[in-house]
């Protein structure tokens, strides 16, 4: 009697195991894991750095400055050209933007700015991605929101789209 009941219960085990596995796989299918690499520095201070200027007549960014956006970009990066109009909109709204150019050259950056507009207050030459790595950034373009005291308030991975402009401007505006 007792044995028969145990067997009857055990018959359900494969079905329950299958349902659990199905639920796990279905969750992964409908809600894929976030593969974005986020910087672990958000909420902490921007580390100090020193970069040479990228184009003549424009200073290089430092860790000090007003509440601003720090935009990691490159002239060879297509999404960077795609986000340029949004950065120009941010500039028109009075948002200061520092640029850090990755693996780039002066002439290439000048050409990029001539073609896509120039939203930058300062532009640094990060030839070997040293500053990019020290910021926990894993690609171009990426944009950090930095408060006046140097606190990194947010990181935007990927190109800035039209729908991101208001949020980024508000974040910088709130950190003045």
């Amino acid at each position, binding site marked *: 009697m007792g044995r028969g009941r145990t067997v009857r219960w055990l018959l359900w085990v494969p079905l329950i195991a299958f349902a659990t596995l199905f639920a796990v796989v279905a969750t992964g299918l409908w809600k894929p894991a976030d*593969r974005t*690499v*986020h*910087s*672990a*520095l958000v909420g902490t201070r921007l580390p100090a750095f020193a970069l040479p200027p990228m184009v003549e007549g424009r200073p290089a960014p430092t860790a000090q400055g007003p509440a601003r956006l720090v935009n990691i970009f*490159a*002239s*060879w990066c297509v999404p960077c050209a795609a986000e340029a109009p949004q950065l120009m909109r941010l500039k028109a709204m009075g948002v200061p933007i520092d640029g850090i150019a990755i*693996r*780039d*050259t002066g*002439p*290439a950056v000048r*050409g*990029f700015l001539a073609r896509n507009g120039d939203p930058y207050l300062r532009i640094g030459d990060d*030839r*070997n*991605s*040293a500053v*990019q*790595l*020290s*910021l*926990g950034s*894993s*690609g171009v373009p990426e944009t950090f929101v930095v408060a006046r005291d140097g606190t990194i308030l947010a990181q935007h991975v990927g190109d800035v789209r039209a729908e991101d402009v208001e949020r980024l401007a508000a974040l910088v505006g709130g950190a003045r």
Partner: protein
Amino acid sequence: MRRLLAPLLAPVLLAATPPAPLAYTQLPDAAQEARARALMETLRCLVCQGQSIADSDADMAGDMRALVRRRVARGEEPDAIRDWLVSRYGAYVTYDPPMAAATWPLWLAPLLLLAVGVAVARGSFRRRGGR
């Protein structure tokens, strides 16, 4: 045709910067290079995600190799360099994950499964022996 292509190619050609000095060059000191190499094999390439920076040809992996070799050459301990990167990117950047709330099953599951296997084997041997 050439005139048509020139403006398209110009940004590509101008932007071709040489790789970082230590991306593809070993350190002169063999012991230091071995230490740098061992560390590079446990660091994740952030743009290729399935490869270590020792295996990847991505530009960013080259820059990360250069960073590792620069710091090893300066006398920094490999563990300190790993910690520096983990403080930037989280434990995601290392293939040698530290024991943490999310990773302890990884470390304990093999021991647990081994114990279950031993128990099952003992049970089945005992039954056969008894017969």
